């Protein structure tokens, strides 16, 4: 790696001050697992990294009440994975994290980093979008709140300004909501996903009252598939309904070709996996 400077501010406010809204070579550094890859590959050459490791402890904590979870952005993925509150209130998140990358990465990577990086292959964003999670962002002029759904604008692109930091993610409790996440790999079993599909459903028996369906990895960004959601809403789940939802999703999604498969192939597995994910949610199991 090419030399750079590193700052270790003691507070969030100090960190924000160190960031430069106009300089892409100054970047915040949380767990660093994703940023390190870009730096090693020469894709990112920082002048200054602002390490968030020493900011206030509260940004690494998980709070819970009946309405849901408040996850500090510096919470590591393994802390969230093992959180009893998460297991109780948002079991789909705990299950998703189990197969996210590997234990060592989860021990270091943070919830905020997984979102701010804007990588469409990440497993957490589609699940958070399906659950209707929101996040709090802090910048020089204070805080703002937005839906995770509105965070991503494109391939590795978000609405965050270069001097804004995610501070907290709020996830509503699943309550009766049934949810699943399916990670589909096309290389080795533990590859990055070629496709991720997250669904969250309000359902009574086999009848879907409302649904959120989100695709990731195959798309430029984690994306809600609203036409598939519309097909499902108010309907009884059966083979034909799932086929129609899959068709709608395949028609709607904007899909990329890469080393993990052609767009044609990924569209095809999206068509299949929307139905499988819905069925898994209804039946309360995960892929």
């Amino acid at each position, binding site marked *: *790696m*090419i*030399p750079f400077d590193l700052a270790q501010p003691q507070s969030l406010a100090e960190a924000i001050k160190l960031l430069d809204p106009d300089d892409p070579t100054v970047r915040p550094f949380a767990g660093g697992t994703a940023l390190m890859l870009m730096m090693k*590959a*020469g894709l990112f050459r920082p002048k200054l990294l602002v390490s968030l490791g020493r900011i206030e402890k509260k940004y690494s904590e998980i709070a819970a009440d009946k309405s849901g979870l408040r996850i500090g952005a510096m919470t590591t993925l393994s802390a969230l994975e093992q959180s009893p509150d998460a297991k109780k209130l948002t079991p789909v998140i705990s299950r998703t994290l189990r197969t996210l990358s590997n234990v060592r990465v989860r021990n270091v990577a943070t919830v905020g980093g997984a979102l701010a990086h804007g990588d469409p292959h990440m497993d957490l964003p589609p699940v958070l979008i399906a659950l209707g999670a929101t996040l709090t962002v802090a910048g020089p002029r204070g805080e703002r709140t937005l839906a995770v759904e509105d965070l991503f604008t494109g391939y590795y692109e978000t609405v965050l300004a270069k001097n804004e930091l995610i501070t907290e993610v709020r996830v509503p409790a699943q309550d009766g909501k049934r949810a699943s996440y399916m990670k589909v790999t096309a290389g080795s079993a533990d590859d990055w996903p070629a496709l991720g599909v997250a669904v969250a459903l309000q359902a009574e028996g086999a009848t879907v009252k409302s649904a959120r369906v989100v695709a990731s990895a195959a798309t430029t960004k984690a994306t809600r598939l609203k036409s598939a959601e519309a097909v499902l809403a108010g309907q009884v789940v059966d083979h034909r309904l799932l086929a129609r939802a899959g068709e709608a999703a395949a028609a709607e999604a904007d899909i990329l070709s890469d080393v993990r498969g052609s767009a044609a192939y990924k569209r095809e597995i999206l068509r299949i996996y929307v139905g499988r994910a819905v069925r898994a949610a209804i039946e309360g199991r995960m892929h």
Partner: protein
Amino acid sequence: MTTTEAKVGAQVGHQVGRSLPRLESRDKVTGRAEYVHTMRLPGMLHAKLFRSTVAHGRIKSIDTSAAKNFPGVAHVVTIADIRKVIPDPYYGPAFHDQPILADGKVRFVGEPVAAVLAADPHVAEEAVQLITAEYEELPAVFDEVEALTANTYIHDELKPAGTFADLKHLKGVRNTNVALDYRLRRGDVDKAFASAAHVFEHEFKTQKVLHLSFEPHATIADYKDSGVTLYTASQGPSFVRTEIARLLGWPENKVRVKVPYLGSGYGSKLYIKLEALALALSMISRRPVKIALTFEELFYQITRHPTTFRIKSGIDKNGRIIARKCEVLWNGGAYADIGPRVTQKSGLTASGPYDIENVSIDSYALYTNVTPSGALRGFGVPQLVWAYESHTDMIARALNIDPIEFRRKNLLREGRPHATGTVMKDAPSTRYWTSSPSGSMRSRSTAAPASSAAAAASVSASRR
């Protein structure tokens, strides 16, 4: 029992046949086993490589001035500097076709063009990024089928190493990408095809893959006037010594090659790889020089041959294979490495483990503009078996013969000649050829998932 108790006529029990844990176990589980990739010598410089970004091109210029002026850089080296210490800087096991650094031309993306030496590897890495090169791009050939007939030639002329009697005739041959063609002719294939009840012809392809040893290639060269010592992650220190002595014009006894633990190889660390460059850089800097590849750089070092294999079989009315014609094209990449040996040694087994009276094999080693291909666990045989055992199964299915039964019927048995004429010896008994190799194979089919069992057989000559 301690060794001091060993007696001339004493019995300690059989040692052969014991499932003894590996002798080096303790070093490996404690992390104390030493590998070249993590070795250091006092005063050592690190080399980082500037690599070609074009697949085929003439080098118009290389600008190393900014890198040379970068603080902490000891040397920036191109082929011109290397010629001053090694006048004929070409190496390779089969052909002396590979320049220590690109010499006038680049032949694949990733080919080393210049090297930066610095005590701090990060300095060398940063300085490499300051080097620029201009190329006059030439048409490139990537595919083995295309390479056979293309009139774009990767090398101006063939340069066999001279150590092989059967490659000498290729010396000086021009206007070809064929580094070696091996042919085998047994019986009369055409006549047999004419009399066959059924003829099947298929084409199979394999892709480019690589070894990915977790210890990437690494060499430290320590050159002194009295002799040179190389610490190298190598599967063949004797060959390294011979080749380094040849490059230096020295007797072998002045070249010392040491290999500590090796973080696997699978064929990637055979013959000569980084050793010639490390030697040259140590000669230029007069200091120990280490080249340790990154994982990414493995993709520019050595790979397995992609292949195109056209195979045609004639079957008589009794289900006997009476003729087989094989044409195998080996995509050797930009430098021959050991490809010509793969082409011959494995090529001669291309007709499979069957007793066939009429066989024709043509096996071609081809130069192309991609990372060189060499030996990878099987030395070409897995590519061949992929084709001939798929082909064999396809024939059996088409003829409605049980695929295992079809193989049994045609298998080469003890005392029968292989396609080469060499008689099969020590063949395992055909009693092992049951239609259910494991005894518990079953075929299953459910709604979406379909499940099944099948088998493949192979025989291959040892390649000594």
